[in-house]
């Protein structure tokens, strides 16, 4: 069982307090809303894509430390990736936070591994996945709203 200190690692607390890539993007190519009806968390992800690569990604929204840090870390992680690579990273991240089997995380996850602890907090998995589901929805060019429920 992951302890509280491991759940709320320094990296997470830092990204919660000082979220990276926070703000709206003018003239975004893709954009999607994410909503977790359980806790009321909402966020919007904005993307600019050039020649199949994510050149800019930002987010705005309110949420708990886990959801905010996850969104911030995600934007850092997917910037510069091809759309295919971003979707692959989504799958790897999703497996990491939901898979009950202990295993080494793919290298690509990098810093995102600090969020692995949410696996042991089933009620908090959706906090960590909200930004990613929203990204996925944006990439699928779904201008509507995505919900974790």
């Amino acid at each position, binding site marked *: 069982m992951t302890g509280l*200190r491991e759940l*709320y690692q320094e990296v997470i607390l830092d990204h919660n307090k000082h979220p990276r890539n926070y703000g709206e993007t003018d003239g975004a190519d893709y954009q999607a809303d994410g909503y977790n009806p359980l*806790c009321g*968390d*909402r966020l919007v992800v904005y993307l600019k894509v050039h020649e199949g690569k994510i050149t800019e990604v930002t987010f705005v929204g309110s949420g708990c*430390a886990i959801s905010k840090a996850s969104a911030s870390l995600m934007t850092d992680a997917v910037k510069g990736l091809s759309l295919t690579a971003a979707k692959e990273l989504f799958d790897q991240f999703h497996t990491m936070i939901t898979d009950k089997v202990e295993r080494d995380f793919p290298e690509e996850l990098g810093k995102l591994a600090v969020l692995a602890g949410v696996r042991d907090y089933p009620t908090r998995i959706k906090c960590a996945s909200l930004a990613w589901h929203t990204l996925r929805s944006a990439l699928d060019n779904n201008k509507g709203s995505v919900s974790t429920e």
Partner: protein
Amino acid sequence: MTSSEEHSLLSGVRRDFPILQRTVHGRPLIYLDNAATTQKPRAVLDVIDNYYTDKNANIHRGVHVLSEEATNAYNDARHGIQTFLNARSDREIIFTRNSTESINLVANSFGRNNIKSGDEILITHMEHHSNIVPWQMLSEQVNAKLKIAPIDDRGQLIMDEFEALLTSRTKLVSVVHLSNSLGTINPVKEIVDLAHDNGVPVLLDGSQAVYHMPVDVQSLDCDFYVCTGHKLYGPTGVGVLYGKETILESMPPYQGGGDMIRAVSFEKTTYADLPQKFEAGTPNIAGVVGLGAAVKYLRNIGFSRIAPHESDLLAYGTEALSSVPGLRLIGTADKKASILSFVMSGAHPHDIGTIVDREGVAIRTGHHCTQPVMDRFGIPATARASFAMYNTRQDIDALVQALERVREVFPS
């Protein structure tokens, strides 16, 4: 143990609730999520167990012994609720699944019969979603308007505004007796009198009120009163609708089926009398019997002992939480029940909930099915500690200690 707790004699009550003996994350459970649901005393658990072990049969019309015993147990429970709410007759007590279904019953039956295009339904800004959505649905169907009476910064209904919104177009007032997210106790007698002066019937949502204070529907003179069993120390899946007999008589059935009929042919069906008219199909018999046991248990302890104990918890808890740095209480009405909603600077309610849970303290976090209240206070969510008769000052001390852990992780 302080003298006031000794005096209230409620410390022994804890032993009646088996679940309070369990541990969570290796620590004693401190259960402070009573506004979501209360725990069940042994007396309720035993009655439900005994019903299935010894009495189980379908009620009504059976001529065998088990059916007769089950029917008697069911009817006794109805009588128990009638006494508990001080209704005139047990024909005025309808069993439903929960408060939500009780409100939907009134919206669909009374509402569709009496509320027409251009009419208005008046509710307040502090309603639970269950006392908003059914009226929105009805309003859409019949082209009526939903009017919202505002609340002030302390979470109190602004009575002048409420009164101003009562017009000749108002056809129903539906108001929460005690707010689940703010703890506010509404001046329901005054509300009923004002509405009746304008010839408007009133529904009171008593889901939170019934386990904190005695409710007398005759003295309130409300037209409908709804509550749910699982917040009343009873089982889930059983709720109550009280309605004045003359009004219930005038209402068409909500659902059709078995048990709610007098005679059926393919040409015509005549409906059963109250209360069966509104209880189509086999009801939650064990749940009703369990709820009967719960109100009996509550009556034996008595609100004369519960109320002072809970008001001590409210006063002690308000002071204790106010001393936590960066903590702000949401809902500070003059008249409040033992519900403390709060936010903490630098820490989201969800994170607060996870951290105190690790200390064995169960609280609720989120919008508490009152999103308009959250919007009114400009916050996405609150953390909420809500106390019942078996809570103690030590439970509140444990919460405050757990909140110190929150401060360690999230310095303000």
